Structure formats: C-alpha cells, structure tokens
C-alpha cells in the first residue's frame, strides 16, 4: 500500500519536474528572434467560411512555432484603402504579412515595393515581387469529389449551385463539380445562380431558395456563409458546402465540402522567412500536399458512395486521376481543349447558366 503511494508520488514529482523543464526550455530559448506575422482578412474570422479557415491556419502557426507573434485583422475592406492597413502593420514591426483576399493585390504590391525588408504572401492573386509571393490551392479536386457525392444522392437530377462571381476560379469549381456529378450520374444538370458577392447571407440564402423552388434537391455553393445550407435544410434538400466543415449548421442536409487546410503552409512559410531561405513563388497546393481536402461525410451519405469517393480521392492524391480531362464538351455540345484552367471562361456540358454572369 505504502509502496504504491510512494510510486504514485514519485511519478507525480517526475511529471511535474518534466513539465517544469519543458516550460524552462520554452522560456530559455532566446536564440530565435521574435517573428511578427500579420494576417489580413476580408471577412469576419467568425464566418465559419473563407476567413475562418485562414484564421485556423494562423492559429496552427501560432501553436506550432516558437517565439512567433501573430496579429490578425478582420473585416478589412479590399481596395485602395487597404494600403494604409498594410503600412500600419509594417510600422508595428510585422515582417511577414499574409493578405487572404484577392482585392488586396495591388495595395500589397505597392507596400511590397516600398518595404523590401518585409515578406508578403497574397492568397488567390497573380502579381508577385521579389518579396511578395502568391498561394492558392486546387479546390477543383475537392469540388470533383463533392460533385460525385451530390450526383449520387440527387433524385430530381437537378443540382443548384450558388456562385459568387463568373471568374476562372469559380467556373473551374463548377466545371469540376459537374464532371464529378456526371461520373456517377450522367443525367444530372447543374443550374448556376450568380450572387455577385462572396459573403452576404441573405443574398446567398435567397439564391439557394430560388434554385430549390426550381426543383433542385441538392445545393452546392461557392460562397462563404452557411445561408445556402440553411435554405437546403429547411427545404429538406441536401447541401454540399465550401471552405470548412459546416455540418453543425445543417446536419440533415450536409453531404460534404471542399475544405482548406492552410496551417501547414503558413508554418512552412514562416519558418522559411525566419531561416532566411524564403524566395518568391506562386504556390498552388492540392490534395496531395494537404492544402485541399473534403470535409467528413454527412450521415445521409450511403456507404457505397463513401467508398467510391474515397477511392477517387486516393487516386487524386496518388496522381493516377486528374479531375480535368485534356478535352471536354462545352455547354453547347462542342468538343474543345481544356485550355488554361486559370483562365477558364466556359461551362462544361450539363451546366445551366451563363459563364459570363
């Protein structure tokens, strides 16, 4: 009895001393200079969508890197006024700045030119400098898989797609989604409604409702809020989301979603900047490197569908399967070369809507 108590005490003391040692190590690590990293988001980080996903990445960076100081600015409007936000961050001593929305491109480029000692990383853009890189990922891989799930569960064979802007990124997603849906269900039609906004819950919800009224029984989206899912849930329809796992908001409607995992990229970039090894690049992540994934399936997704999609996912990761073939049939039934997917300006066969908006 006494012996076990002693043992327990000894283990406790040992554990405590280990914790103390660990803490001591942490604070004693004075050899790395503090790295001040800033994130600038267009939406609120509570949106559970695009900005939230980036904020999760920022938190991952904070948790996995020593001596890093992360500043997060949310709801910063895009456009010319954002220049002063970047300037303020630089004045505060930040040396690595991530801008997570397209509309920061020109102001970031201007700030980068004026401050060569600061490193800038711009999500979704295409302009670079020696101290400004871009990053984005192949969401189309997740879109294709979400399309397979949606195509499998639709009964009306009409899938509604609430989409923000008619730009290559969004068209790419719609086409990949449609090709995925057609793989499992050749009769499926994807109807697109444009909202002209990334984040506007009432507009997104109304757009989803109009598609449900038109007979769609699955809603997909390229939007940042949960509103289309709420509309689908209320109508007893299904929902393929975007950005993050949003199952909790519409548990019955939830199928899956292409999701982002920015954390490892942020960590890798910050470590390279600290080590002085970072060089400018246009990083395009994918499922293989983990930047893109799909969210866990909803409870209504049948086992055989899960199995089928999981197999495809493994093939995408291994490189055996590419979501876009070299030639595709466009909306009007003409065969055409796939072309540059970063300048995609057409819909594939099976999409109803105007690719020009």
């Amino acid at each position, binding site marked *: 009895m006494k012996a076990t108590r002693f043992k327990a005490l000894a283990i406790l003391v040992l554990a405590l001393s280990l914790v103390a040692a660990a803490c001591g190590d942490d604070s004693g690590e004075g050899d790395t200079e503090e790295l001040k990293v*800033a994130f600038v988001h267009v939406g609120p980080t509570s949106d559970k969508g695009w900005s939230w996903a980036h904020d999760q990445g920022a938190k991952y960076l904070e948790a996995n890197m020593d001596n890093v100081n992360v500043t997060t*600015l949310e709801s910063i409007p895009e456009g010319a006024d954002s220049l002063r936000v970047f300037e303020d961050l630089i*004045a505060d001593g930040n040396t690595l700045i991530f801008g997570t929305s*397209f*509309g920061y491109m020109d102001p970031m480029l201007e700030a980068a030119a004026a401050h060569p000692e600061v490193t800038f990383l711009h999500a979704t853009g295409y302009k670079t400098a020696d101290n400004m890189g871009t990053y984005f990922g192949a969401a189309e891989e997740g879109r294709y898989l979400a399309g397979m799930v949606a195509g499998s569960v639709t009964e009306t064979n009409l899938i509604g797609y609430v989409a923000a802007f008619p730009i290559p990124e969004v068209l790419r997603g719609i086409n990949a989604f449609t090709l995925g849906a057609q793989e499992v269900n050749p009769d499926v039609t994807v109807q697109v409604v444009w909202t*002209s906004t990334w984040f506007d819950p009432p507009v997104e919800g109304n757009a989803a409702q109009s598609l449900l009224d038109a007979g769609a029984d699955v809603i997909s989206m390229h939007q940042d809020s949960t509103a289309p899912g709420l509309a689908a849930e209320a109508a007893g329809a299904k929902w393929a989301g975007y950005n993050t796992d949003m199952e909790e908001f519409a548990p019955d409607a939830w199928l899956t979603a292409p999701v982002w995992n920015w954390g490892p990229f942020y960590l890798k970039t910050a470590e390279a900047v600290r080590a002085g090894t970072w060089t400018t690049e246009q990083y395009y992540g994918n499922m293989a490197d983990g930047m893109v994934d799909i969210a866990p399936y909803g409870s209504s997704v049948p086992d055989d569908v899960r199995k089928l999609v999981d197999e495809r996912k493994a093939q995408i990761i291994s490189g055996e399967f590419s979501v876009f073939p070299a030639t595709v049939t466009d909306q009007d039934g003409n065969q055409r070369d796939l072309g540059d997917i970063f300048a995609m300006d057409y819909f594939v066969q099976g999409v109803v809507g105007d690719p*020009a908006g």
Partner: protein
Amino acid sequence: MTRRFIVEPRGVADSWVKLAVPVASVVAALVLGAIFLAITGNSVIEVYAKMLKTAFGSWRGFSETLVSATPLILTGLAAAVAFKMLVWNIGGEGQLLIGAVLASGVAIMMGDNVPAVAAVVLVISAGAVGGALWAGIAAAPRVYLGTNEIITTLMLNFIAINLMNYLVFGSFSPWRDPDATQFPQGRPISDRARLPEFGELIPGLKSFLHRLDLGFVIAVVVAILIWVVLFRTPWGFGYRVAGDSAGAARYAGVKVSRTFFATFLMSGAAAGLAGGIMVAGVLGKMDPRSLELGLGFTGIIVAALARLNPVVVIPVAILLGALINSGPALQSIGVPSSTAVMLQGAILIFAVAGEFLIRNRIRRPDAVPTEVSEAEGATA
C-alpha cells in the same frame, strides 16, 4: 417636495452653445467608448493613444487621414447643403457612385487624346455632372409631383450600387479591365486624367504627404465656395430664407421650387464630385470595392456634426476620416473590429442629442435665473 426637470425652447442659441454642444457630444461619445472599452477589458488609454497615433502620429498617418477626409468633405457638403434647405437627400452614396461611373467613363473614352490639365478637369467635372443627374432623377418628381425624396434617393442608392457592380462584375463593359482575366477589375484610366499628388508637384513633399493628391484642395475650395454662395450672395439669402420658411420666402419673392431644385442638384453634384475625385485621384479606375464604403452615408454624419455649416464640414470630415483610419489598427492591439464603428455610431447619436440641447434648455421650474445658467454650464 420634488422638483422635476422641464424642457423649454432656448430661442436663439448663443454662439458658445453652438460650439460647446458638438464638442461636448464628441467628448461624451469618447467617454461612452471608454466605458465600453473598460468593460470589455481593454486599456482605454492604450486604445485612444493608438487611435491618435495611427491617425495623426506620423506624416503618413496624417496624410492618410486627409486622403480619407477628402470624399467625406464632399459627401458632408452634399448632405449639409440639402438638409439646410429641408431637401432630404440621403442619396449621397448613389450620387458618389454615379459620379465615379461617369468620371471613369469620360476618362476611358478620352484615352490619351486629351492634354493633361484639360483631361483632369473634364473627368472630375463629369463626376459632378453624374452626381447632379442622379440627384435630378429624384429632384424632378419631388418638385413637380411631390414624391417623397427620402424614399427615392434611398432607393436610387441601391440602383447605383448594382449598376456600378454590373459594369465591372456583370458585363464586359468599357469600364471593365480586359487584361484582368482572373478577377474583374475596373479599367485603369490614363495617367493624364489623374489628379497629381503633392509629392509629384513638389518632390520634397512626397515623404510628408505620401499619396495625398490635389483632390483634398479641391474639396476644401468647394466647401469655402459653397459657404460664400450661401452666406454672401442674394441667391444664398433666398436659399436660407426658404430653408427656414418656404411661405416667408415665397412672400419675399424667392422662387422656392427653383431654389429647391437647384439645391438638390448642387447636393448631388458635390457627392458626384467626390466619386470623380476618387477615380482621378487615389483609385485611378472605377474600383467598386474601393468606392462602396458607405462614404455617402458617413457624409450625413459629417453634416450633422458640422451643424450643416459648409466650412465646419472640413474639420469634422478630417475627424471622422481619422476615426475610420484608426479602426483597423486597433485590432492589432486586440480590440474588436466593431469598436471604431460603434464609436462612429455613438458620435452620431450624441450629435443628434446635442442638436436637441442647442434648440432647448433643460431646467428645474422653481430655479432662480442664476441657477439656470449654472445648470446650463453643467450641461455643456
């Protein structure tokens, strides 16, 4: 015995009251903000120091404050000029945007074919014309049919927003940059149509005033001109009489409808000029994301705080510009993004409440006159 407070009209307010009440309103808003910050666990001094430092603590911050103030001076004028005449134009937002549409349209049409100074004048004038035309859509039915301009100008804001977005995001119009394939953007205008920055005119100023351009000077000059027209010309006299009493003005021979119409258009032109100056100045294109910031609505706050005085609009716009600019910087010291917005709202509410105190006094009925003046002192 309980003595209640009574409210009674002040008659003509002393000029010190007119100054003290708005200043006290801002102070009260800052005190309310301080209480809010303290409750939410922020250091009040740290927050206000950060705001002050961001907006005025460096040349760059100061120049950015003036950059933000430039459109606010003009949208503030748009509201001040209209409200004084009891023209309830709350369409400054839409008039600014249509000003930007017309200004950038003229700039794109001209290309590089017009000499620099003429090009700039044409572009920003087109902005004013655009704003006046958009206001005219609401003004004509108001004057001839008696429609409610609050509703029409408000609704026209949404049409303007959607029209601007359509031109860039929804169509391949001349306003859209054909080279921006990844995401729609406004087409850049020729450098000849751009308002010069101070630093371009006098190189030594670049490190002080950064990207501040002549638009700020134009806004200040317009404010002074409007003050002169309203307070130093016969037309301005008719305008002011009509604003106080349409009946009296009519009796005195003022053409009230015509004055009303002209005021409406002048208001719209000021807001449209703001859009034109933004396009020719900091933006260099019709960039919907940089234009749709609620500047027209903020102009109403500016006008209310400036008590509809065109010249007072200038310092008030600078103050609100500073407030807007310091908002994002607060997040870097851990304050929620909504705090600056809340402060703006608080200042508006206090300004409106202050207006009440300028028109009325609050006193206890049994008080002797000396006590009244003490109570007044406490109020201010």
